[in-house]
C-alpha cells in the first residue's frame, strides 16, 4: 500500500519534470551572435555614464579625496 503511494509520488514527480522540460525546451531562443551584439551595444550606449568604467574627475567623485591647495 505504501509502495503504491511512493510509486505514485515518483510518477507525479517524473511527470512534473517532463512538463517542466517540455516548457523549457519550447521557449523561443535567439542566436548567440544576436544576443552578443545586443550585450555589446548596451555596453557601448551606457559606457559614457559608467563612472567606474571611464573615471570621473576627482572633484566630482565624493569618494576620492580632494586635496586642497594651500598658499604659503
Amino acid at each position: 500500500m505504501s509502495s503504491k503511494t511512493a510509486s505514485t509520488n515518483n510518477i507525479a514527480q517524473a511527470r512534473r519534470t517532463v512538463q517542466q522540460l517540455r516548457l523549457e525546451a519550447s521557449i523561443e531562443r535567439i542566436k548567440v551572435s544576436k544576443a552578443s551584439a545586443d550585450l555589446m551595444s548596451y555596453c557601448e550606449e551606457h559606457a559614457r555614464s559608467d563612472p567606474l568604467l571611464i573615471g570621473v574627475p576627482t572633484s566630482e567623485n565624493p569618494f576620492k579625496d580632494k586635496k586642497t591647495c594651500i598658499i604659503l
Partner: protein
Amino acid sequence: MATDGLHENETLASLRSEAESLKGKLDEERAKLHDVELHQVAERVEALGQFVMKTRRTLKGHGNKVLCMDWCKDKRRIVSSSQDGKVIVWDSFSTNKEHAVTMPCTWVMACAYAPSGCAIACGGLDNKCSVYPLTFDKNENMAAKKKSVAMHTNYLSACSFTNSDMQGCDKKAMVWDMRSGQCVQAFETHESDINSVRYYPSGDAFASGSDDATCRLYDLRADREVAIYSKESIIFGASSVDFSLSGRLLFAGYNDYTINVWDVLKGSRVSILFGHENRVSTLRVSPDGTAFCSGSWDHTLRVWA
C-alpha cells in the same frame, strides 16, 4: 481512483526516458544557436585601459564577519549585517555609523535598504525577516519599532525590497516568473555551488559566482551560458558578483581575499584588488555607479573607487 488520472502507457520508466530525451533535445536546440562566442564578437570592441581602483573608505565597527551589505538609493548610506548579530547603517562619505541595531540572533546573513531610504530589512538564523524603520530620534529605541514581515522554515539567506526573481540553488541557476510562480529557465553549467547571482543592467542576462572558482554569464534570450570568467591561478570560490552601471565590468569577490574585475565582453581580467584580510563575503556597486563596496570576514567594509 487508484490510477489517479494516470494514462495507461505512462509508467515511471517511460516518463524518465522522455525526460532524458527532452534534456537531449534542450541541449540540441541550445547548441543550434551557438554560432559564435561572445568574446569573438567582442574582438572589435576597444580594449579597456588600465584601471586604478583603490580603497577610499574603510568602515570599521563590526565585531565579527560581515555577511551582507546593501546601498541606499541616496548613493551614500550603506547597511551591513554581521555574524556578531549587529546591523549597522553607515554614512559612507564620512564613515560615521548612523544607526546600529542588535538582532536577537547572531549570523545576520541578509540585509537590505528600502528604496525609500526609511527602513532596513534583515534576517538570518532567526528564520525571520524583520523590517526596522530608521529614526534619528535618540529617544526612540529602534529595536522596539521592529516589525516582522516573514517567517521562514529555515534561515534567511537573502532579502531584497524589489522582486528578486533569481535563485542560485546548488549548481543550478533558475529564473522564475513571479506572477505564475513557475521556473521558466534553468542553467546547470557550474561545477559547484553557486553563491551569488546578479542581473545584467539590461535585464537580458545574468552573472553567477560559484565555488568552482569561476563566474559565468548567461544570456536569457539565447538561453545559454555565453561567457566564463576564470583563470588557472584562481582556485578559490567567488562569493559575490555585481556589474558596473554599463555592464562592461563585472566585480567579483573571492574567498582568497581578493576582488577580481573582469571585462564582461572580452572575458579577460582587467584588475585584481587587494586589501581585505579575509574572505570577501558581499559586494555591491553603488546606485550611481561611482563606487562599489565590499564586505569581508575581516570585520570591515571597504568602499572602492
